[in-house]
């Protein structure tokens, strides 16, 4: 049990609180069955003997909380679209860049892509570039495929948007290429990898850092600060904050509920933008 929790934290930064340890067994049951193993101890033994990291990847994947939905906290996404509209106006012909970090199976970046399209947020020719990353290859594969079950497609997505952007029925829904090509998915570990190249106008990192240790969370904020363009914003999940965690970000006065680089990190950024 301890070794499995340690593996998860080492690879992803995610800690399993003692009161959620029971979840380990439930979450790993299907994997045990698939491998013909009886107990968690058998799994640990195999993990220690296997030389390729493949089994470890599968264990980590099974333990990650990947819960998400279309338009999760829809009021927040509306505010992201407001901010994107304002920032795009200032950026002129420069295309906005958005990073959805910890995007799970893709609902978050696809929701943004739909919103930007509806609100016509674009330079004269191109909508914002959306880069979406997650540590989990399985989640990314599903995100890229754009395929969703009946439960997933209904949760948070209005029927009109579903009719516009998805095809299918009978339980299996697939995003149109028109939607999937608006988002680039890449594997990325927030707990270790440098941010994707270039600076982003808006970085979303929602419901990912909740179970990181304080020290690691601070390190992640350091790296996120390198990814946010001066004047740009960081968006966290409902109930998450930077306050008391890092000095690099401060609550945005301009975009309520979001964070800007602190004045010391991006001097003059605010005054330059009014």
């Amino acid at each position: 049990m301890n070794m499995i929790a340690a593996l998860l934290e080492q690879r992803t930064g995610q800690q399993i609180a003692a009161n959620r340890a029971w979840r380990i067994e439930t979450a790993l049951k299907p994997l045990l069955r698939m491998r013909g193993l009886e107990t968690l101890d058998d799994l640990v033994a195999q993990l220690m003997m296997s030389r390729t990291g493949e089994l470890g990847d599968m264990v980590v994947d099974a333990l990650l909380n990947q819960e998400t939905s279309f338009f999760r906290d829809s009021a927040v996404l509306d505010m992201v679209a407001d901010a994107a509209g304002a920032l795009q106006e200032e950026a002129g012909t420069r295309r906005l860049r958005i990073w959805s970090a910890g995007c799970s199976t893709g609902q978050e970046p696809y929701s943004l892509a739909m919103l930007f399209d509806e609100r016509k947020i674009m330079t004269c020719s191109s909508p914002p570039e959306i880069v979406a990353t997650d540590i989990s290859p399985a989640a990314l594969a599903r995100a890229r495929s754009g395929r969703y079950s009946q439960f997933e497609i209904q949760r948070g997505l209005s029927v009109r948007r579903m009719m516009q952007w998805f095809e299918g029925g009978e339980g299996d829904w697939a995003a149109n290429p028109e939607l999937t090509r608006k988002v680039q998915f890449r594997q990325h570990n927030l707990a270790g990898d440098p941010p994707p190249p270039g600076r982003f106008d808006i970085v979303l990192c929602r419901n990912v850092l909740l179970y990181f240790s304080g020290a690691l969370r601070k390190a992640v904020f350091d790296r996120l600060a390198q990814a946010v363009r001066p004047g740009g914003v960081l968006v966290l999940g409902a109930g998450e904050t930077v306050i008391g965690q890092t000095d690099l970000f401060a609550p945005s006065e301009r975009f309520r509920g979001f964070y800007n680089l602190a004045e010391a990190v991006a001097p003059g950024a605010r005054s330059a933008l009014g």
Partner: protein
Amino acid sequence: MKTCLVVDDSKVIRKVARHILETLDFEVREAGDGREALDSCMAAAPDVILLDWNMPVMSGMDFLRALKDSGIAHKPKVVFCTTENGMAYIRAAIEAGADEYVMKPFDRETLESKLQIVGVA
């Protein structure tokens, strides 16, 4: 407190829907077919209707047309809630005037999110 009229010929579905809706703070009324639903709406219009498609006496679609023609002042929001889960059905329902569409089976989160989308939750 908002009112929801659950229209379904299945007692079980009505019971499940009632349970979820009550936890979402709705006052729930029930009807077993379109005809009963229409009578209920004429007596007092609910805020939202959860509407099954296939029912005896009067189907969901026929109910929707009748509701349109009824001249009720405060037209309730209509959320189709059915096992018909093909795009053709969905289009037909929206064209006939439904506001949202839920494919059965559904759970609490699905229902809640759809009620939020139509602006009653």
